[in-house]
C-alpha cells in the first residue's frame, strides 16, 4: 500500500537532483563577493524550507491522528519529523560552512534563520526521547502527536520572535544580492528547491514502506506465536519463542 508510486518518485527525484546539480555548477552565476562557496546557498536554503515544511506537516499529521485515531497518521507524522530532524542537522552544518566562508566564523548570531533553526532543532531533539520513553504504545502515539502539534505551532512563533530580536542595523549575513535574484539564480534556486522537496518525499515514502513492512512482519510473528502456543498447550508443553518481538515505530 505504501510502496505504490515509489519508483516513479525516485526517478523524478534523481532527475531533479541531477538537473539541479548541473545548474548549480554550470549555469548559476558566480558570486562576486563570496565566490564559489556561495553556491552552498542552493543547498542550505531549500533544505531549510523543506525541513520546516516537514515539521509543520508532522504537526498537521499529528492533528489528523488525534482526530481519526488511525495509527498510520501517527506513523506518517513520526517519519516526517524524524527526517526533518536529520535534515535540520544538514541545515545547521551547511549554514556553518557558509558562515565560515563568508565571515570567518563558524556561527553567526546575526543570521535569524540559522538561530531560529538552532532553537527548533534543540526542541525537536526531544521528540524521540519523549516518544520512546512512554511504554504504552497508544499513549506514546497520542503524546507524540501532541508534541508535534505544539512544536509545529511553535515554529512560526519562534521565527517571528528571533526576527524581532534582530535590530534593523544588522544586515542579513547569509543573504544573496539582497533579495533581487537574477533570472539564472532564480531558476537554479527553484530547481534545487524542487529537487530537495522531491528527495524528502521519496525518503519519507521509503521509510514509511519499510516500517510498514516490519510491522506486518511483527504482526504475523505475534499471530504465529499465538497459534503455536495454542497447539502446544493442547499437547501440554510450552510453545517455543518465535524470535524476539520488538516494539513500535523503532523497528526497521
Amino acid at each position: 500500500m505504501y510502496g505504490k508510486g515509489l519508483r516513479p518518485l525516485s526517478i523524478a527525484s534523481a532527475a531533479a537532483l541531477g538537473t539541479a546539480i548541473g545548474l548549480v555548477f554550470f549555469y548559476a552565476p558566480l558570486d562576486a563577493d563570496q565566490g564559489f562557496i556561495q553556491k552552498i546557498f542552493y543547498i542550505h536554503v531549500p533544505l531549510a524550507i523543506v525541513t520546516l515544511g516537514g515539521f509543520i506537516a508532522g504537526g498537521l499529521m499529528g492533528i489528523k491522528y488525534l482526530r481519526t485515531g488511525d495509527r498510520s497518521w501517527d506513523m506518517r507524522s513520526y517519519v516526517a519529523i524524524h527526517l526533518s530532524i536529520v535534515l535540520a542537522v544538514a541545515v545547521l552544518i551547511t549554514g556553518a560552512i557558509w558562515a565560515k566562508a563568508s565571515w570567518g566564523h563558524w556561527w553567526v548570531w546575526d543570521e535569524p534563520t540559522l538561530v531560529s533553526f538552532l532553537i527548533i532543532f534543540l526542541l525537536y531533539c526531544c521528540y524521540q526521547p519523549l516518544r520512546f520513553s512512554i511504554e504504552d504504545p497508544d499513549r506514546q502515539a497520542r503524546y507524540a502527536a501532541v508534541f508535534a502539534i505544539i512544536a509545529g505551532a511553535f515554529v512560526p512563533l519562534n521565527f517571528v520572535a528571533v526576527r524581532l530580536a534582530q535590530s534593523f542595523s544588522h544586515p542579513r549575513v547569509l543573504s544573496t544580492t539582497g533579495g533581487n535574484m537574477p533570472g539564472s539564480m532564480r531558476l537554479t534556486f527553484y530547481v534545487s528547491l524542487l529537487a530537495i522537496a522531491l528527495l524528502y518525499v521519496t525518503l519519507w515514502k521509503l521509510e514509511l514502506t519499510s516500517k510498514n513492512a516490519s510491522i506486518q512482519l511483527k504482526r504475523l510473528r505475534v499471530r504465529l506465536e499465538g497459534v503455536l502456543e495454542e497447539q502446544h498447550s493442547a499437547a501440554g508443553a510450552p510453545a517455543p519463542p518465535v524470535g524476539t518481538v520488538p516494539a513500535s515505530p523503532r523497528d526497521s
Partner: protein
Amino acid sequence: MAEQSATAVIEVEGLERRYGERAALSGVSFQLGEGQTLGLFGPNGAGKSTLLRVLATLLRPHAGGVRVLGAQLPDESWKARGRVGYVGHDPLLYRELSGRENLVFHARLHRVDEARVDELIAAVGMQRRARDPVRELSRGMVQRLSAARALLHDPPLLLLDEPYSGLDPAARELLDPLIGKPSGRTRVLVSHDVDSGTAESDVALGLRAGKQLHFGTPDPAELRRLFQ
C-alpha cells in the same frame, strides 16, 4: 436519577482492548442486571483490572460495544461518569491532605453537599482520624476512606478491585453494609480469593490472558480451573 431502566446496568458485547499489538481483553461479552453482583476471576494479568477500568470509563474500548448505566462508551462516557463508584488499587487520596479534606474535594468535584462527607466519615468509622493527613493513616483506614470517597455521590454502580485486601475483620464488617452484598447496589467485584468471591457474587466472569473463559454461575470448582 433520571431513568429507572428495566434493562441491564451493564451490557458488554465483544469488548476488545489492546496494549500495542497484544490483546489485554478480547471477546468479552456479558450483562449485569440491577442489584446483582458480578464477580471477576482469573490469574494475575488476566485483564480483570483492565476490564474494571474500562467500565469505570478510565480506559476506552478499542472494539465492541459497552453500555454502562445506559451510556454508550466511549462516546457517552461523560454520562456515566459521576454515577460510578470506583475503589481500585490506588485509594485516590492526596497523602498530604486529611481524610476530610480529600472527601470535601471529591464532594465538590461531584457536586455533592458537604454534609454527606461527615455522614460517610461516620459510616466508615473514621470520625476520630478524619482530620489527620492521609500519610499518617494505616492501610485499613485509607481503604475505608477510599470506600467513603467512592460512595459520596451515591452511585448506582460500584466497581470494586479487591476492596477488602489488607482489612481486618472489624473493618470488613464496617464496610460490608456500604459496599458489600447487603448494600443492595449493583456491583462488579474483582477477587483473588475464589471462595469468598463466589460467595459474594450472583454471577461470575472468568478471564485468562484477556479471554473470557467462563460466564455464568459462580461455581468455585469451575473457576479454580482458570488458575491452572
